């Protein structure tokens, strides 16, 4: 299989060069950008397979890049990369179309693995993202839950919850499959369906949710 063509978006040169060193032997890096406008232009021009997208950047951050590129280039897949602990930012990026979220201290091999997964159309749920999503759908979470703001949001099925919980507990897909006695493919389809549910509800409601949570 040919190497996925990867584009880096991060406003910190140090982080970009770190990532480059870690993944360059496994993927084909076709370009990088350190600001939102340049990123949008270059991504549309080069149409990479996977964009590694920093969530926090000046001028709107990863969300701005996603919102500008996603409608024009549906084949470009995004993997959000961040040091952020703010659930709302991460959930926003995922809802806007990112296929996954990993933290920047991820091991190089795991990052390469995640890029290949996203390239193959799978979804990458780090434990932390699973926690954020469970929190967003939860009835007992600290802020107002996503479901109470967004009536169109489909609730998670018990099975999807189980899968997310195991991921949050640190299980990789293979372990989740073994634990629940299902195939890895089924795990992947559950995770994809969670992502679809998140992305289906409208952006307007998402903003409401994010701002209300921030007020709390």
């Amino acid at each position, binding site marked *: 299989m040919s190497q996925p063509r990867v584009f880096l978006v991060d406003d910190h040169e140090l982080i970009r060069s770190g990532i480059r060193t870690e993944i360059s032997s496994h993927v084909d890096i076709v370009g990088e950008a350190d600001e939102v406008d340049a990123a949008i232009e270059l991504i549309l021009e080069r149409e990479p397979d996977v964009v590694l997208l920093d969530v926090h950047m000046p001028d709107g951050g990863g969300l701005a890049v996603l919102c500008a590129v996603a409608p024009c280039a549906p084949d470009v897949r995004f993997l959000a990369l961040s040091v952020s602990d703010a659930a709302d930012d991460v959930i926003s990026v995922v809802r806007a179309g990112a296929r996954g979220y990993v933290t920047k*201290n991820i091991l190089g091999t795991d990052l390469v693995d995640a890029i290949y997964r996203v390239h193959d159309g799978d979804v990458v749920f780090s*434990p932390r993202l699973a926690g954020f999503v469970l929190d967003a759908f939860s009835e007992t979470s600290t802020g107002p839950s996503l479901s109470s703001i967004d009536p169109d949001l489909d609730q998670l099925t018990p099975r999807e919850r189980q899968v997310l919980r195991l991921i*949050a*507990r640190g299980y990789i897909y293979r372990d989740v499959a073994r634990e629940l006695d299902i195939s890895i493919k089924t795990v992947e389809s559950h995770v994809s369906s969670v992502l679809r549910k998140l992305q289906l509800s409208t952006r307007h409601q998402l903003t409401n949710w994010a701002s209300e949570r921030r007020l709390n």
Partner: protein
Amino acid sequence: MTRSSTGAVVGGVCAGLAVRLGVRELWVRIIVSVSVLFFGIGLFVYMSAWLLVPRWGEDRSVAQRLIGARRESHIILWALLVALIALLALGDFAKHWTGAASWPVLLAVVALVAVWFGASRDERSHLQDVVNATPILGASSARGWRALVWRLVPGILLLILGLTTLQKLGGISAGAFHAVVGAGALALGAAILLAPWWLDIVRDLSRERRERVRVEERAKLVAHVHDSVLQTLTLIEKAATSPADVVRLARAQERELRQWLFAPEHVAQREDASGTLAQQLRGIESDVECEYGVTVELVVVGDCPGDARIAALTAATREAAINAAKWAHVARISIYGEVETTNVSVFVRDTGVGFDPDHVADDRHGINQSIIERMASHGGRAVIRSAPGDGTEVQLSMSLSGVPA
């Protein structure tokens, strides 16, 4: 003798005189000021010196320069004429108002006009600064002369009205009405004249306050960055030969900085043992990472306030996490806490060497006493799943309903 250009308050006459006579500037200023009171002698002397004595570093005096320029000298002559007519016409009124000083005052005004037109560019900019710094003139000249006229005319008229009305008090028509009108007009006039100056002072004060707050904020930030980030960087430099120490330091600093940036409220409450479940778990995360040099991936869904049962749960969690860090031989362990409506669970998982739970060595009391029994005594449950070579997961759950044990 020359007029001073550096020590000048207005024209530099006093400072220049002080240098010439070798006495302190302050005494010259006092003597000149006092002599103004005697028929305006001081004023007359001062203005004459201003006109006739060249400024330090300039070869010609104001008067010499004026004589050389036709247009300017015409203006001065006209000004002198207008002043004389004004003095004669308003003679009685002016004497009444300012007494014997009215002649010197008006002559001084003419001299000022002369100085303005005769001054060198350098001196003129100095005078502009002086004007800008005076209470009434300054604030308005910065905003344009039209504003000054609008304010000066009604202000001075009201002052005169107030003064004359008050003066009548002593005469035949003494009465409360005049007193009130006079005092009111006086106050209003003074307010109109001084308002911009006063407003400027208030504005300056609030700007100063804002500035101070900003400086304090910055000092706080600098202090924090210094105490945490810079110190850690120094430590990392020193520990460069020991990768484990570098990783531990970097992780600890990252976590602290992250907390400070994203969740400042937790920083204040961290020390408190009775914090919420999430706060206590974060404490465990940082302690275990610091002490054992492993990475702890902590995920918490929901939160609940701490009580005796939560304390038992987190104590068991700590024990399980320390066990994993010590015995599993892995770089990363996961802690997951979830609060549901009736139940709190915590999972501590590693993918390390594992062990056979049925054959725990006697010297490892941790599991039995610190985890299983502690949970049981508070009505909770602990399940340990492990197999050699297949990692370990400690599952802790505590019911939230019912009376705490």
